[in-house]
């Protein structure tokens, strides 16, 4: 059939989009009223599981932006089994992540040998004052409940040898 001049076809596309938006609704989400749920693995904020942390400082050493500050002190802890030896363990005094510097690369979560750091897809923690972006360990522990279960893997993936 005769080639429709490009100009007219262009009008057809915009008209078609308009009809589709009116009938089937727009692709945009009206943010404050409806919220889009981010995927499970989305790196929103880092959550800290305090009792796993032995303040080995691996995360703050491998952070490229130097934004994790840890202070701890040695302490004695009751033995695991009665009659066992009294253990000497590190107690966390301060565990801050400065989200103004953090670039969400995830090296700290990955490098932590004791599974103390987890990703949670939470993203609504912006602050009017930049200093409040320094989350201390109590705030980081609050994020723990928002950490989801790891998603099932695609078919053909190697089973995790956990």
């Amino acid at each position, binding site marked *: 059939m005769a080639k429709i001049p490009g100009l007219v076809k262009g*009008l057809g596309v*915009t008209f078609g989009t308009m009809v589709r938006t009116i009938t089937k609704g*727009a692709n945009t989400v009206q943010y404050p009223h409806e919220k889009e749920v981010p995927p499970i693995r989305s790196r929103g904020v880092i959550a800290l599981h305090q009792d796993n942390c032995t303040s080995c400082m691996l995360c703050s050493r491998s952070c490229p932006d130097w934004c994790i500050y840890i202070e701890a002190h040695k302490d004695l802890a009751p033995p695991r089994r009665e009659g066992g030896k009294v253990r000497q363990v590190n107690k966390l005094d301060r565990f801050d992540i400065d989200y103004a510097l953090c670039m969400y690369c995830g090296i700290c979560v990955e490098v932590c040998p004791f599974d103390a750091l987890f990703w949670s897809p939470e993203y609504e923690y912006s602050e009017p004052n930049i200093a409040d972006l320094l989350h201390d360990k109590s705030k980081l522990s609050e994020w723990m409940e928002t950490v989801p279960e790891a998603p099932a893997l695609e078919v053909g993936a190697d089973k995790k040898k956990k």
Partner: protein
Amino acid sequence: MMQSLFLVVVPYWGQSLLRVLGGLVAVLLPAGTIVYLFLFKMMSFMQSRLGPMEAGPYGSLQLVAEVGKWMQKEDIVPQRADKFIFKIAPVVVLVSTFLLVVVVPFGPDAYFTNFDTGVFYALAVSSISVLGILMAGWASANKYSLLGGLRAAGQLIAYELPMVLAVMGVVIQAGTMNMQQIVVSQNSGSMFGFSGLGNPFVLTQFVGFIVFMISIQAELTQAPFDMPIAESELVSGYMTEYSGFRFLIFFIGEFATAGVFAMIASVLFLGGWGVPFAWFGWTSTDDVANWMNLVGPLIIFTKMMLVVFIIMWVRFSYPRFREDQLQRFAWKILIPVSLANIMVTAVLKVAL
């Protein structure tokens, strides 16, 4: 005609006051609805989004919010600008719109003035906005606005000629320059003996209609011809240095002119305020029923909305011409086509 409108004698100064209020409503009301309906809503739907939804139900008060925003913004006058010319430039552009609306008939008796040379007057006045744009471009002492202003001057003058020639076809077919008579001749005429549809000039003068629409698109500096406000090159052309209330005047000016030009287009080509007289057995204006004075404005409003829909639809779909292509298109294509259209109409007019 106005004095016996409400069965009370309205002194002369009252009439002109009514006319001023009528003019304001006739210009600002269409501008407001056009901005909301087309710029906010239709553009968003064409881009698969919903557009402003927060201010008022379905974003209806968005324009009020915008006007409020612009009002409270500080309107800056650049230090090296030519102060006086800079200040009155937007007013000149807006004035040309109000002058234009004066000549548009809204009903058998509802019109501001009834010039015998209405069309000639409209075309002459429409070129005042070029002066305003040039003044804005020159006075804001900014390279981008200078370039924008010069481009606007070149473009608007180049596209006035085809507009005038396109309208000549209509004037020849209607045999008069009086807008009221043009409306009457369109609605009372008949095509091939069938008078149910009247004789809208858009059918017989289709070429003239196309050329006129393209020239309007250029006069309003809309998308395929928005070289003067080329955002990707000249930031925003002659309007770059304007802010606050002055920018608001420019903004309203832009859309009010679109509305008024659409009204003129609907008068010249789509039969203005009238429906085909054959439906009611009228033959001329004086035996048209009185309620037509109220229904007329509504009809011309809907026809104007149809024409503005086409203008905006083209505006949101097309990329921009380059400066020399724009000029070449006007001089080499539009003007010869409209001249040919005039000749054909003249020959047919004499033959029939």
